[in-house]
């Protein structure tokens, strides 16, 4: 950033963020006090994230993690997205589907944002 000067608002924000949060990602596990902007700044193919069995990482975003291994790219809040997941069984391992398994799953939940407490945990 030494040879660049911010000329619009967005660039100024970038400058502020990078000054506050010096770049350079330390090796995980080695101590550092530096902050760094990581997840959505990566380019190219993401590294394989380190989250284990049960996580659908091949979808973009996944259920537990987005394709960078973080949560910044998830559909949020998750309740907003449930009807799509439920009806289309887009997440068969994470959300019950309406086609066969739990047709009444959201019967008591007219608006997920309001009624999300009425959604049940389903035991396969």
């Amino acid at each position, binding site marked *: 950033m030494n040879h660049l000067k911010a000329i619009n608002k967005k660039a100024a924000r970038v400058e502020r963020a990078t000054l506050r949060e010096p770049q350079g990602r330390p090796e995980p*596990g080695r101590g550092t006090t530096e902050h760094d902007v990581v997840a959505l700044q990566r380019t190219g193919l993401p590294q394989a994230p380190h989250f284990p069995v049960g996580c659908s990482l091949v979808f973009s975003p996944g259920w537990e*993690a987005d394709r960078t*291994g973080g949560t910044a790219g*998830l559909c949020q809040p998750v309740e907003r997205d449930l009807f799509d997941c439920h009806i289309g069984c887009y997440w*068969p391992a994470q959300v*019950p589907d309406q086609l066969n398994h739990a047709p009444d799953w959201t019967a008591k939940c007219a608006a997920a944002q309001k009624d999300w407490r009425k959604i049940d*945990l389903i035991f396969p």
Partner: protein
Amino acid sequence: MSERKLTMSVNVIGWAVGLAVMCATPPAHAQPPTPAATDVAKDEGIPVQNDLVRAKCGSCHRSDDKGRMSRVSYRRATPENWERTIKRMVTLNHAILEPADARSILKYLADHQGLAPDEARPIAFEAEHRMIEYSYTVDKDAADTCSSCHSMARVLSERRTKEEWELLVAMHRGYYPLIDSQPMNGGQGFRRTRPIQTEPGPDGRPPDNRHPMDKALEHLTKTLPLTTPEWSAWSAAMQAPKIVGRWAVVGSQAGKGSIFGQVTVTADPSVPDGFNTETRYTVARSGETITRTGKALVYTGYQWRGRGSSSSAAGSDPSTSSGSSRAQSRDEAAWREVLFVERDWTQMWGRWFTGAYDETGIDVKLTRLSNDPVVLGTSVASLKTGATNQAVKIFGANLPATLRPEDVGFGQGVRVSRIVNARADEIALEVDVAVGAPIGPRDVSVGGTVKAAALVVYDKIDGIRVLPQAGMARVGGNVFPKQLQQFEAVAINYGPDGKPDTADDLTLGLVAVKWSLEEYTATFGDDDIQFVGTLDANGLFTPNVDGPNPKRSGNRNNVGDVWVVAELSSADARQPDRPLRARAQLLVTVPLYMAWFESEGGK
């Protein structure tokens, strides 16, 4: 298997790997298999010789003249996979089963159509509910097609005929129609959705334009057939396990360190291959002693599935919790046990676990005890050079009650100065470590018994490391349970070569550190750290509640990613004026709405 679950009606689902619909007009049967496939399958099928299975499953699964039942006889699977299938038959296909019958059927099928030990060994982590990274590199098409939704180990828990593999895919396509075109791995569902390739590949061969599921099927049929030499050998050699007796247990629990104790196994005459257990172990670092009683069944001659609880909570049934208590984690005193009984009946290994998502566990190894003395380990993982009157406990079994200091050895430069107390299972003593004692792993001997590499001698702490390097928690508490994440910090000495990350690095065991969270800055103005939850003084992360949070932009959930930071200020550090720091990534994410992690296999 609880009655409540078995009698649940169609609003309960079963989604996993298993047999397809079998009642009424099963869609899988609507497509008659080719004669060739049928012939092969019939040649291979395993006759069912159990009256209960034939009575309860036979109305849909017809037997042929050789006692082979449709679908059932052409598949082998782990107890967990058979259990999922039986549950699905009840919940989706209207099979009516009493819990006791379901347990008997599960036992018969797992015993007579199970996996051989060598087939199950590589996927032990699946039954152990261990959170690990696992990549199936043998076949990319199979991995993409199957593990986009569930663990590949669930597939590797199966052995099937070609026709059965095809019907399994048909079941998935029937229950989850969208998987045909679901964007797995960048746009490929079960069916090929990309344009047909006409150009030859880099190897000059014509392009393979088959559907991904067809490529996966070819691999599964070839790699995981019903008939294997392993199963032929094991199904003939298998015996009811004779494992009654005393067992020494050595284990390791995240955040707590090593545990040492004993398990007494007695026969449970009420069920075949059933056992009762009494377990008593000590957490070496804290001295805390835990006593549990439990029950277990051994499937297929080697798969121990048990359930234990501390005496005060014995008999409690976590599956009976419902309603508002569902949000709480399961009875914390109830632990499940998954062990692999080695063929020589002298060792068992696996995991004991608990928690709403089975996230809290102890990796254990059990060794059968005779009357010979055994040294299991020590209360400390490391000794510092120059330390005097260092208190150490040695854990074991059948240890001599009268000991002199010279009967106990720690190798060069370490002298036992005093025996404080000696019991058959525990010796308390004090040691002096010479200033110039060579650093490295040390054997500990008591009389004529030795434990190799029981601890290490070190001079300075060169660094610390946070484990696991990547952790995951799930928000909960309002409706769904919380998934916790325990972190721990271990100290490292770079070893005689003084260089980090080399083979001679010494792990010095857990150290008490100052824990904190730092923002993992994924976006500008990232504020996850304010919402995700709290990390306690022992490194246990407890996530915040589930549900939309009106205080966050876009009503986001209390999800986020943060760094978990450990800081150690120690006079033992090589540079004592500079605190040692290390960190790990923590993903705090959304709940699961399907309790696929639940299993009743141990009951």
